[in-house]
Protein backbone atom coordinates (compact mmCIF):
# COMPACT_ATOMS: atom_id res chain seq x y z
CA UNK A 1 0.00 0.00 0.00
CA UNK A 2 1.52 3.42 -0.92
CA UNK A 3 2.46 5.73 1.93
CA UNK A 4 -0.27 8.30 1.08
CA UNK A 5 -2.97 5.62 1.34
CA UNK A 6 -1.65 4.48 4.71
CA UNK A 7 -1.67 8.07 5.90
CA UNK A 8 -5.30 8.59 4.80
CA UNK A 9 -6.40 5.35 6.47
CA UNK A 10 -4.67 6.32 9.74
CA UNK A 11 -6.20 9.83 9.63
CA UNK A 12 -9.69 8.38 9.20
CA UNK A 13 -9.08 5.87 12.00
CA UNK A 14 -8.08 8.70 14.32
CA UNK A 15 -11.26 10.55 13.27
CA UNK A 16 -13.38 7.48 14.09
CA UNK A 17 -11.74 7.16 17.52
CA UNK A 18 -12.31 10.88 18.16
CA UNK A 19 -16.05 10.56 17.36
CA UNK A 20 -16.29 7.41 19.52
CA UNK A 21 -15.22 9.30 22.59
CA UNK A 22 -17.25 12.44 21.96
CA UNK A 23 -19.31 13.19 25.07
CA UNK A 24 -23.11 12.83 25.11
CA UNK A 25 -23.86 16.56 25.18
CA UNK A 26 -21.60 17.08 22.15
CA UNK A 27 -23.36 14.26 20.28
CA UNK A 28 -26.77 15.68 21.18
CA UNK A 29 -25.79 19.08 19.81
CA UNK A 30 -24.41 17.48 16.62
CA UNK A 31 -27.61 15.44 16.21
CA UNK A 32 -29.81 18.52 16.71
CA UNK A 33 -27.75 20.54 14.22
CA UNK A 34 -27.97 17.78 11.62
CA UNK A 35 -31.74 17.43 12.14
CA UNK A 36 -32.18 21.19 11.78
CA UNK A 37 -30.05 21.16 8.63
CA UNK A 38 -31.97 18.37 6.91
CA UNK A 39 -35.44 19.26 8.21
CA UNK A 40 -36.31 21.05 4.89
CA UNK A 41 -35.89 17.66 3.17
CA UNK A 42 -38.36 16.06 5.61
CA UNK A 43 -40.81 18.93 5.16
CA UNK A 44 -40.58 18.86 1.35
CA UNK A 45 -41.03 15.09 1.15
CA UNK A 46 -43.98 15.21 3.56
CA UNK A 47 -45.57 17.93 1.41
CA UNK A 48 -45.05 15.94 -1.80
CA UNK A 49 -46.53 12.82 -0.15
CA UNK A 50 -49.52 14.82 1.13
CA UNK A 51 -50.19 16.27 -2.34
CA UNK A 52 -49.96 12.83 -3.98
CA UNK A 53 -52.35 11.41 -1.36
CA UNK A 54 -54.77 14.25 -1.96
CA UNK A 55 -54.70 13.68 -5.70
CA UNK A 56 -55.09 9.91 -5.51
CA UNK A 57 -57.37 9.45 -2.52
CA UNK A 58 -59.35 12.57 -1.81
CA UNK A 59 -60.59 13.47 -5.27
CA UNK A 60 -64.20 14.42 -4.62
CA UNK A 61 -66.77 16.20 -6.67
CA UNK A 62 -68.71 19.24 -5.42
CA UNK A 63 -71.69 17.20 -4.25
CA UNK A 64 -69.46 14.87 -2.19
CA UNK A 65 -67.65 17.89 -0.73
CA UNK A 66 -70.98 19.46 0.30
CA UNK A 67 -72.06 16.22 1.93
CA UNK A 68 -68.76 15.86 3.76
CA UNK A 69 -68.94 19.49 4.90
CA UNK A 70 -72.46 19.19 6.28
CA UNK A 71 -71.55 15.91 8.02
CA UNK A 72 -68.48 17.50 9.61
CA UNK A 73 -70.47 20.55 10.70
CA UNK A 74 -73.06 18.41 12.44
CA UNK A 75 -70.29 16.31 14.05
CA UNK A 76 -68.61 19.52 15.19
CA UNK A 77 -71.83 20.78 16.79
CA UNK A 78 -72.31 17.45 18.53
CA UNK A 79 -68.73 17.47 19.84
CA UNK A 80 -69.06 21.06 21.04
CA UNK A 81 -72.18 20.12 22.98
CA UNK A 82 -70.45 17.06 24.45
CA UNK A 83 -67.41 19.17 25.30
CA UNK A 84 -69.62 21.65 27.15
CA UNK A 85 -71.19 18.90 29.22
CA UNK A 86 -67.80 17.33 29.94
CA UNK A 87 -66.28 20.66 30.91
CA UNK A 88 -69.00 21.29 33.46
CA UNK A 89 -68.54 17.71 34.72
CA UNK A 90 -64.77 18.33 35.00
CA UNK A 91 -65.37 21.54 36.97
CA UNK A 92 -67.78 19.73 39.25
CA UNK A 93 -65.27 16.90 39.67
CA UNK A 94 -62.51 19.35 40.55
CA UNK A 95 -64.77 21.10 43.06
CA UNK A 96 -65.52 17.78 44.70
CA UNK A 97 -61.83 16.77 44.66
CA UNK A 98 -60.94 20.09 46.24
CA UNK A 99 -63.60 19.53 48.89
CA UNK A 100 -62.04 16.14 49.60
CA UNK A 101 -58.57 17.71 49.60
CA UNK A 102 -57.47 15.80 46.50
CA UNK A 103 -55.09 17.19 43.89
CA UNK A 104 -56.99 19.04 41.16
CA UNK A 105 -57.17 17.11 37.91
CA UNK A 106 -56.98 19.08 34.66
CA UNK A 107 -57.31 18.16 31.02
CA UNK A 108 -54.12 18.07 28.95
CA UNK A 109 -52.79 20.82 26.76
CA UNK A 110 -52.09 19.21 23.41
CA UNK A 111 -49.95 20.28 20.46
CA UNK A 112 -51.11 18.65 17.21
CA UNK A 113 -48.31 17.44 14.92
CA UNK A 114 -47.87 15.61 11.63
CA UNK A 115 -45.40 12.77 11.09
CA UNK A 116 -42.87 13.85 8.47
CA UNK A 117 -40.39 10.95 8.61
CA UNK A 118 -40.23 7.37 9.83
CA UNK A 119 -36.86 6.19 11.04
CA UNK A 120 -34.95 4.03 8.58
CA UNK A 121 -33.36 2.05 11.39
CA UNK A 122 -34.46 -1.54 11.85
CA UNK A 123 -33.74 -1.98 15.55
CA UNK A 124 -35.03 1.34 16.90
CA UNK A 125 -38.59 2.54 16.49
CA UNK A 126 -39.03 6.25 16.10
CA UNK A 127 -40.82 8.92 14.08
CA UNK A 128 -40.08 12.54 13.33
CA UNK A 129 -42.81 15.19 13.68
CA UNK A 130 -43.12 18.71 12.30
CA UNK A 131 -43.25 20.44 15.70
CA UNK A 132 -40.38 21.34 18.00
CA UNK A 133 -39.20 23.60 20.80
CA UNK A 134 -40.72 26.55 18.91
CA UNK A 135 -44.13 25.03 19.71
CA UNK A 136 -43.42 24.37 23.37
CA UNK A 137 -42.23 20.79 22.96
CA UNK A 138 -39.38 19.54 25.16
CA UNK A 139 -37.68 16.13 25.55
CA UNK A 140 -39.58 13.44 27.50
CA UNK A 141 -43.14 14.52 26.77
CA UNK A 142 -45.90 11.98 26.16
CA UNK A 143 -47.26 11.61 22.61
CA UNK A 144 -50.78 10.29 22.02
CA UNK A 145 -53.51 9.93 19.40
CA UNK A 146 -57.27 9.76 19.85
CA UNK A 147 -56.84 5.95 20.13
CA UNK A 148 -54.07 5.68 22.68
CA UNK A 149 -50.41 6.11 23.59
CA UNK A 150 -47.79 6.55 20.84
CA UNK A 151 -44.52 7.24 22.69
CA UNK A 152 -42.39 10.06 24.06
CA UNK A 153 -40.29 12.85 22.61
CA UNK A 154 -36.49 12.47 22.67
CA UNK A 155 -34.37 14.81 20.52
CA UNK A 156 -36.10 18.19 20.05
CA UNK A 157 -34.96 20.89 17.62
CA UNK A 158 -36.80 24.17 16.95
CA UNK A 159 -38.79 22.69 14.05
CA UNK A 160 -38.52 18.89 14.26
CA UNK A 161 -38.84 16.42 17.15
CA UNK A 162 -38.01 12.73 17.36
CA UNK A 163 -40.56 10.43 19.02
CA UNK A 164 -39.45 7.13 20.53
CA UNK A 165 -42.39 4.78 20.00
CA UNK A 166 -43.80 2.47 22.67
CA UNK A 167 -42.77 -0.44 20.43
CA UNK A 168 -39.11 0.45 21.17
CA UNK A 169 -37.42 -1.61 23.89
CA UNK A 170 -36.12 1.56 25.53
CA UNK A 171 -39.55 3.12 26.04
CA UNK A 172 -40.68 1.84 29.46
CA UNK A 173 -44.20 2.59 30.68
CA UNK A 174 -45.67 1.88 34.10
CA UNK A 175 -48.96 0.14 33.20
CA UNK A 176 -52.04 -1.29 34.85
CA UNK A 177 -54.47 -3.88 33.57
CA UNK A 178 -58.17 -3.09 33.22
CA UNK A 179 -60.41 -4.51 35.92
CA UNK A 180 -57.51 -5.75 38.09
CA UNK A 181 -54.96 -4.28 40.46
CA UNK A 182 -52.11 -5.79 38.43
CA UNK A 183 -49.34 -3.45 37.38
CA UNK A 184 -46.18 -3.96 35.34
CA UNK A 185 -43.63 -2.31 33.09
CA UNK A 186 -44.60 -2.20 29.45
CA UNK A 187 -42.03 -1.89 26.64
CA UNK A 188 -41.37 -2.93 23.07
CA UNK A 189 -39.51 -6.03 21.97
CA UNK A 190 -35.88 -6.03 20.86
CA UNK A 191 -36.71 -7.78 17.61
CA UNK A 192 -39.38 -5.61 16.01
CA UNK A 193 -42.64 -7.52 15.65
CA UNK A 194 -44.98 -4.59 16.29
CA UNK A 195 -46.03 -6.11 19.64
CA UNK A 196 -45.43 -4.98 23.21
CA UNK A 197 -44.48 -6.87 26.36
CA UNK A 198 -45.52 -6.20 29.92
CA UNK A 199 -43.09 -7.57 32.50
CA UNK A 200 -42.92 -7.81 36.30
CA UNK A 201 -46.58 -8.82 36.61
CA UNK A 202 -47.75 -10.69 39.66
CA UNK A 203 -47.44 -14.46 39.22
CA UNK A 204 -50.99 -14.80 40.49
CA UNK A 205 -52.32 -12.40 37.86
CA UNK A 206 -54.58 -14.36 35.62
CA UNK A 207 -54.77 -12.10 32.60
CA UNK A 208 -57.15 -12.95 29.80
CA UNK A 209 -56.80 -12.11 26.12
CA UNK A 210 -58.68 -8.94 25.27
CA UNK A 211 -58.11 -7.11 28.56
CA UNK A 212 -57.06 -3.51 28.06
CA UNK A 213 -53.83 -2.08 29.48
CA UNK A 214 -53.61 1.58 30.52
CA UNK A 215 -50.79 3.83 31.71
CA UNK A 216 -50.50 3.75 35.50
CA UNK A 217 -49.25 7.33 35.78
CA UNK A 218 -46.58 7.10 38.47
CA UNK A 219 -45.63 10.34 40.19
CA UNK A 220 -42.76 12.09 38.46
CA UNK A 221 -43.26 9.95 35.36
CA UNK A 222 -43.70 11.06 31.77
CA UNK A 223 -47.01 9.39 30.96
CA UNK A 224 -50.24 10.56 32.61
CA UNK A 225 -52.58 7.96 34.05
CA UNK A 226 -55.41 6.32 32.09
CA UNK A 227 -54.11 6.41 28.50
CA UNK A 228 -54.80 3.21 26.58
CA UNK A 229 -51.61 1.31 25.66
CA UNK A 230 -52.76 -2.00 24.20
CA UNK A 231 -54.78 -5.19 24.50
CA UNK A 232 -53.56 -8.42 26.10
CA UNK A 233 -52.85 -11.15 23.54
CA UNK A 234 -51.30 -13.79 25.76
CA UNK A 235 -50.02 -14.28 29.29
CA UNK A 236 -47.27 -16.61 30.51
CA UNK A 237 -45.63 -17.32 33.85
CA UNK A 238 -41.87 -17.05 34.26
CA UNK A 239 -39.61 -18.05 37.11
CA UNK A 240 -40.04 -14.85 39.07
CA UNK A 241 -42.86 -12.92 37.43
CA UNK A 242 -45.61 -12.99 34.84
CA UNK A 243 -45.27 -11.66 31.31
CA UNK A 244 -47.98 -10.63 28.87
CA UNK A 245 -47.76 -9.86 25.18
CA UNK A 246 -49.86 -6.92 24.02
CA UNK A 247 -51.22 -5.67 20.73
CA UNK A 248 -50.76 -1.86 20.66
CA UNK A 249 -53.97 0.15 20.42
CA UNK A 250 -52.44 2.53 17.89
CA UNK A 251 -51.82 1.28 14.36
CA UNK A 252 -48.32 2.65 13.71
CA UNK A 253 -48.26 1.73 10.02
CA UNK A 254 -51.11 4.14 9.18
CA UNK A 255 -50.30 6.88 11.65
CA UNK A 256 -50.13 10.41 10.24
CA UNK A 257 -51.14 12.82 13.01
CA UNK A 258 -50.31 12.79 16.72
CA UNK A 259 -50.70 15.05 19.77
CA UNK A 260 -47.91 15.97 22.16
CA UNK A 261 -48.95 16.54 25.78
CA UNK A 262 -47.14 19.73 26.68
CA UNK A 263 -48.76 20.18 30.08
CA UNK A 264 -52.01 20.59 31.93
CA UNK A 265 -54.68 22.99 30.69
CA UNK A 266 -54.86 26.15 32.79
Amino acid sequence: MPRSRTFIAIALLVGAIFFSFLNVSGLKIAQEKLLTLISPVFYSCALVKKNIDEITQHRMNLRQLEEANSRLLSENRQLEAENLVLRSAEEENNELRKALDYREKSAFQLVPATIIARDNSTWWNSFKIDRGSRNGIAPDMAVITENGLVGKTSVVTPGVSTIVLITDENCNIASKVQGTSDQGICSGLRIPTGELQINFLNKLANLQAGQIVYTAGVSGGIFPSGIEVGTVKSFCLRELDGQAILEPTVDFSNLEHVFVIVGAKE
Partner: protein
Amino acid sequence: MALEATLPFIPFLGQVHLILFTIIFCFAALVLPFSGALFFGFITGLLEGLLVMQIYDQHVEIRLGWFILFFTLWALVLQCVSDLTDGIRWELHTLGTGLCTATFLLGEFFLLTFSRGNFFITGDVFIVSLLAAGISFILAPFFYGCLQFLLSPPKQVCTNYLAPL
Protein backbone atom coordinates in the same frame (compact mmCIF):
# COMPACT_ATOMS: atom_id res chain seq x y z
CA MET B 1 -30.69 8.93 4.12
CA ALA B 2 -33.13 11.74 4.85
CA LEU B 3 -35.14 10.81 1.75
CA GLU B 4 -35.16 7.18 2.83
CA ALA B 5 -36.70 8.15 6.18
CA THR B 6 -39.63 9.80 4.45
CA LEU B 7 -40.65 6.64 2.57
CA PRO B 8 -43.93 5.16 3.79
CA PHE B 9 -44.23 1.66 5.29
CA ILE B 10 -44.60 -1.24 2.88
CA PRO B 11 -47.50 -3.25 4.35
CA PHE B 12 -46.48 -6.72 3.15
CA LEU B 13 -42.91 -6.32 4.47
CA GLY B 14 -44.02 -6.01 8.09
CA GLN B 15 -41.20 -4.55 10.17
CA VAL B 16 -38.55 -4.80 7.44
CA HIS B 17 -37.21 -1.41 6.40
CA LEU B 18 -36.20 -0.42 2.93
CA ILE B 19 -32.47 0.43 3.05
CA LEU B 20 -31.34 2.38 0.02
CA PHE B 21 -28.35 4.37 1.23
CA THR B 22 -26.07 1.32 1.13
CA ILE B 23 -26.75 1.07 -2.63
CA ILE B 24 -25.54 4.64 -3.18
CA PHE B 25 -22.65 4.13 -0.76
CA CYS B 26 -21.38 0.99 -2.54
CA PHE B 27 -21.62 2.69 -5.93
CA ALA B 28 -19.63 5.70 -4.70
CA ALA B 29 -17.08 3.45 -2.97
CA LEU B 30 -16.47 1.67 -6.27
CA VAL B 31 -16.47 4.72 -8.53
CA LEU B 32 -14.47 7.22 -6.47
CA PRO B 33 -10.66 7.17 -6.21
CA PHE B 34 -9.13 5.57 -3.10
CA SER B 35 -8.97 8.64 -0.83
CA GLY B 36 -12.38 9.88 -2.02
CA ALA B 37 -13.98 6.49 -1.36
CA LEU B 38 -12.55 6.31 2.16
CA PHE B 39 -13.63 9.86 2.91
CA PHE B 40 -17.10 9.09 1.52
CA GLY B 41 -17.25 6.06 3.85
CA PHE B 42 -16.29 8.29 6.76
CA ILE B 43 -19.01 10.84 5.95
CA THR B 44 -21.65 8.12 5.36
CA GLY B 45 -20.86 6.58 8.75
CA LEU B 46 -20.94 9.93 10.49
CA LEU B 47 -24.29 10.98 8.99
CA GLU B 48 -25.94 7.57 9.40
CA GLY B 49 -24.72 7.37 12.99
CA LEU B 50 -26.02 10.82 13.86
CA LEU B 51 -29.37 10.11 12.18
CA VAL B 52 -30.14 6.77 13.82
CA MET B 53 -28.23 7.06 17.09
CA GLN B 54 -30.47 7.07 20.19
CA ILE B 55 -29.39 8.67 23.43
CA TYR B 56 -31.15 7.39 26.56
CA ASP B 57 -30.42 8.79 29.99
CA GLN B 58 -27.03 10.21 28.98
CA HIS B 59 -26.05 6.88 27.47
CA VAL B 60 -25.29 6.21 23.79
CA GLU B 61 -26.17 2.67 22.75
CA ILE B 62 -23.88 2.44 19.71
CA ARG B 63 -20.91 4.75 19.47
CA LEU B 64 -20.54 6.95 16.42
CA GLY B 65 -17.08 5.48 15.79
CA TRP B 66 -18.60 2.09 14.95
CA PHE B 67 -20.65 3.54 12.07
CA ILE B 68 -17.60 5.43 10.77
CA LEU B 69 -15.30 2.41 11.02
CA PHE B 70 -17.87 0.13 9.40
CA PHE B 71 -18.38 2.26 6.29
CA THR B 72 -14.70 3.20 5.97
CA LEU B 73 -13.74 -0.49 6.10
CA TRP B 74 -16.39 -1.39 3.52
CA ALA B 75 -15.10 1.40 1.26
CA LEU B 76 -11.60 -0.07 1.62
CA VAL B 77 -12.84 -3.60 0.82
CA LEU B 78 -14.78 -2.44 -2.24
CA GLN B 79 -11.77 -0.47 -3.50
CA CYS B 80 -9.52 -3.52 -3.16
CA VAL B 81 -12.07 -5.77 -4.91
CA SER B 82 -12.55 -3.29 -7.76
CA ASP B 83 -8.73 -3.23 -8.19
CA LEU B 84 -8.76 -7.03 -8.42
CA THR B 85 -11.59 -7.13 -10.98
CA ASP B 86 -9.93 -4.33 -12.96
CA GLY B 87 -12.85 -1.88 -12.84
CA ILE B 88 -16.38 -1.73 -11.52
CA ARG B 89 -19.00 -4.22 -12.58
CA TRP B 90 -22.72 -4.29 -11.78
CA GLU B 91 -22.40 -7.77 -10.27
CA LEU B 92 -19.77 -6.47 -7.85
CA HIS B 93 -21.97 -3.52 -6.88
CA THR B 94 -25.01 -5.75 -6.35
CA LEU B 95 -23.14 -8.29 -4.26
CA GLY B 96 -21.39 -5.55 -2.27
CA THR B 97 -24.71 -3.84 -1.53
CA GLY B 98 -26.34 -7.05 -0.29
CA LEU B 99 -23.40 -7.99 1.92
CA CYS B 100 -22.92 -4.45 3.23
CA THR B 101 -26.61 -4.15 4.20
CA ALA B 102 -26.69 -7.57 5.87
CA THR B 103 -23.48 -7.04 7.85
CA PHE B 104 -24.59 -3.52 8.81
CA LEU B 105 -27.91 -4.71 10.27
CA LEU B 106 -26.43 -7.75 12.00
CA GLY B 107 -23.53 -5.72 13.42
CA GLU B 108 -25.96 -3.09 14.69
CA PHE B 109 -28.06 -5.79 16.40
CA PHE B 110 -25.04 -7.43 18.07
CA LEU B 111 -23.76 -4.11 19.40
CA LEU B 112 -27.24 -3.18 20.61
CA THR B 113 -27.56 -6.51 22.39
CA PHE B 114 -24.18 -6.11 24.06
CA SER B 115 -25.11 -2.57 25.09
CA ARG B 116 -28.51 -3.53 26.55
CA GLY B 117 -27.31 -6.79 28.06
CA ASN B 118 -29.31 -10.01 28.11
CA PHE B 119 -27.61 -11.35 24.97
CA PHE B 120 -29.78 -13.50 22.75
CA ILE B 121 -30.15 -14.21 19.08
CA THR B 122 -33.05 -15.78 17.25
CA GLY B 123 -33.89 -16.68 13.69
CA ASP B 124 -36.03 -13.54 13.41
CA VAL B 125 -32.90 -11.37 13.61
CA PHE B 126 -31.44 -13.12 10.56
CA ILE B 127 -34.77 -13.07 8.71
CA VAL B 128 -35.22 -9.31 9.22
CA SER B 129 -31.58 -8.56 8.29
CA LEU B 130 -31.41 -10.84 5.29
CA LEU B 131 -34.80 -9.75 3.96
CA ALA B 132 -33.72 -6.08 4.09
CA ALA B 133 -30.38 -7.03 2.47
CA GLY B 134 -32.24 -9.05 -0.17
CA ILE B 135 -34.41 -6.07 -1.11
CA SER B 136 -31.33 -3.84 -1.41
CA PHE B 137 -29.65 -6.60 -3.47
CA ILE B 138 -32.60 -6.73 -5.89
CA LEU B 139 -32.81 -2.95 -6.21
CA ALA B 140 -29.04 -2.44 -6.64
CA PRO B 141 -28.78 -3.20 -10.42
CA PHE B 142 -31.57 -0.73 -11.16
CA PHE B 143 -29.81 2.01 -9.20
CA TYR B 144 -26.48 1.02 -10.79
CA GLY B 145 -27.98 1.50 -14.26
CA CYS B 146 -29.52 4.85 -13.33
CA LEU B 147 -26.33 6.15 -11.72
CA GLN B 148 -24.17 4.97 -14.62
CA PHE B 149 -26.52 6.72 -17.03
CA LEU B 150 -26.45 9.95 -15.00
CA LEU B 151 -22.68 9.94 -14.54
CA SER B 152 -21.61 8.80 -18.01
CA PRO B 153 -19.83 11.52 -20.01
CA PRO B 154 -21.83 12.96 -22.94
CA LYS B 155 -21.05 11.40 -26.31
CA GLN B 156 -18.91 13.60 -28.53
CA VAL B 157 -20.03 14.14 -32.09
CA CYS B 158 -17.06 14.42 -34.38
CA THR B 159 -17.49 15.95 -37.79
CA ASN B 160 -14.93 16.71 -40.48
CA TYR B 161 -12.31 14.90 -38.49
CA LEU B 162 -9.55 13.23 -40.37
CA ALA B 163 -7.47 10.78 -38.51
CA PRO B 164 -3.75 11.25 -39.03
CA LEU B 165 -2.28 8.68 -41.32
